[in-house]
């Protein structure tokens, strides 16, 4: 089944669809815009099992597919530019290959942009994917990741969102064999009327697989962030370890956040946790800093910077860590 047929079968996103609960679906163009399509440039793709509109959209619009194969044991640092309105990128990463992949921001102003990434990790592959988008004015941006992980592979995903429009990152990660690990560390640094939405589903399909989700939000103005994180642990998947933590600091009266953890666990011998905190800047910490002579504005900056950078300081020394901390240093 092709992507357009699948969208027609599923229908356009609605608020009563649990994948789109928190998203302002009225901002998505009506179905008619799907009829306007480029000439076919998309790799053949069976979309019958896809459920997320954002995963299907680039394919339905005949986005150009870029395929990159990385051989076993290779090390590579790659930059991906997403300047088209719709894009599709496939990375096939060989056994024990090490890849650092930075996704650069879309510098062309489109009314809507949607990118899909398929990352296929062979045994022992170690991959980091990161982006730190500069504040751009894309009104609506979707970025979907479909990740397939073989035994012993690891994928570390880290990002900073600080656009002025509406962004949605969706990830379907399939941990298919023992030893596979997935980690996401993502920061929303939002102001004005911007909103950022994360929708993840982590499929633990094998025993001894691990997933870590860690999101932080610093929200000002009327900004809104949502985090919808699902973990599914299959039958016979013992020794699975999964954690999810979302911390939010609301820096204004009108900013807000929604968090929805979903755990579907079909085995007893697992450790799965989730947590969520939301509040203002810690009053005691603020008082402590200003009582040492640090002006309030600077104290606030120190605390927000600490809150944000703590997320990425735990990353190993890597291009992702360098880039993300550099961006934080520049913007906070």
């Amino acid at each position, binding site marked *: 089944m092709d992507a357009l047929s699948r969208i027609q079968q599923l229908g356009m996103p609605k608020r009563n669809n649990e994948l789109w609960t928190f998203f302002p679906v009225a901002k998505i163009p009506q179905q008619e815009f799907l009829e306007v399509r480029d000439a076919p440039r998309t790799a053949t793709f069976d979309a019958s099992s896809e459920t997320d509109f954002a995963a299907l959209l680039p394919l339905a619009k005949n986005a150009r597919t870029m395929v990159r194969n990385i051989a076993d044991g290779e090390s590579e640092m790659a930059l991906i530019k997403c300047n088209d309105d719709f894009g599709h990128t496939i990375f096939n990463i060989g056994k024990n290959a090490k890849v650092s992949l930075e996704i650069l921001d879309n510098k062309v102003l489109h009314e809507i942009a949607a990118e899909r990434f398929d990352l296929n990790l062979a045994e022992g592959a170690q991959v980091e994917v990161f982006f730190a988008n500069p504040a751009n004015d894309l009104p609506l941006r979707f970025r979907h990741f479909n990740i397939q992980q073989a035994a012993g592979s690891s994928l570390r995903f880290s990002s900073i969102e600080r656009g002025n429009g509406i962004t949605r990152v969706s990830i379907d990660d399939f941990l298919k064999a023992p030893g596979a690990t997935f980690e996401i560390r993502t920061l929303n640094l939002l102001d004005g009327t911007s909103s950022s939405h994360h929708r993840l589903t982590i499929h633990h399909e094998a025993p001894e697989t691990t997933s870590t989700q860690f999101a932080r939000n610093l929200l000002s103005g009327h900004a809104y962030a949502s985090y919808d994180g699902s973990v599914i642990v299959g039958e016979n998947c013992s020794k699975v370890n999964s954690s999810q933590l979302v911390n939010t600091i609301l820096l204004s009266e009108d900013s807000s956040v929604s968090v929805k953890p979903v755990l579907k666990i079909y085995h007893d011998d697992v450790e799965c946790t989730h947590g969520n905190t939301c509040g203002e800047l*810690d*009053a*005691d*910490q603020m*008082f*402590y*800093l*200003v*009582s*040492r*002579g*640090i*002006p*309030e504005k*600077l*104290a606030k900056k*120190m*605390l927000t*910077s*600490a*809150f944000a*950078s*703590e997320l990425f*300081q735990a990353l190993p020394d890597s291009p992702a860590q360098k880039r993300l901390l550099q961006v934080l240093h520049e913007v906070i």
Partner: protein
Amino acid sequence: MLSIQNLKASIEDGTQILKGINLEVRPGEVHAIMGPNGSGKSTLSKVIAGHPAYKVDGGSVELDGKNLLEMEISERANSGLFISTQYPTEIPGVNNVEFLKMALNSKRAYLGLPEINDADFHKLCEEKMELLEMDARYRERGVNEGYSGGEKKRNEILQMAILDPKVSFLDETDSGLDIDALRIVANGINHIMNPEKAVILVTHYQRLLDYIKPTYVHVLRHGKIILSGGPELALKLEEQGYDWIEEK
């Protein structure tokens, strides 16, 4: 130097905690404030510092003739006031040394001085850390992050040593200190102290006063200073408690 006149303050629900504090602190003096739990000792330090949880109902607090109560919290500190609270706050992610440097440079900016350069700051920091027998861990960690109670108190005195305040109000600096740490911290305070500075110590025990000789000892009870005397008063309190004062 520090002049507190008829200071009254209450908490959010309207309960008045300080009911008219009077205290004159001159350069070179060490004042010890003692009193039972809940008498208002910690409140006094927080009200002087400008903690937002307290409302000043009346009175004045002047440092070298300037009314502290009209100043922003940071301005009070930069004017020469240092308050060490009973439970120093942990601030994960804010590096301890960066924080110290930021605080010192804020004070220097307030005084119209240029920022301290890295080499001079490093030297100053090393010197004060050596005085307080502090190791490298204090440099690498977040402010008070994961410190033991004693380590936090030592870190407070490090801040005091670097910021070089005119008046330091140290609230139960001796709590949580083992015998050796108490000696080190007390020596640090004595080292920092000079005839142009003053220290106010809040303590429950004579043991701190064995190291830091007070000029005056005050008893704070029910939000007022009800008795003042010399160092011998602390010894008597240690021996007899507080009940005899009320009986008297």
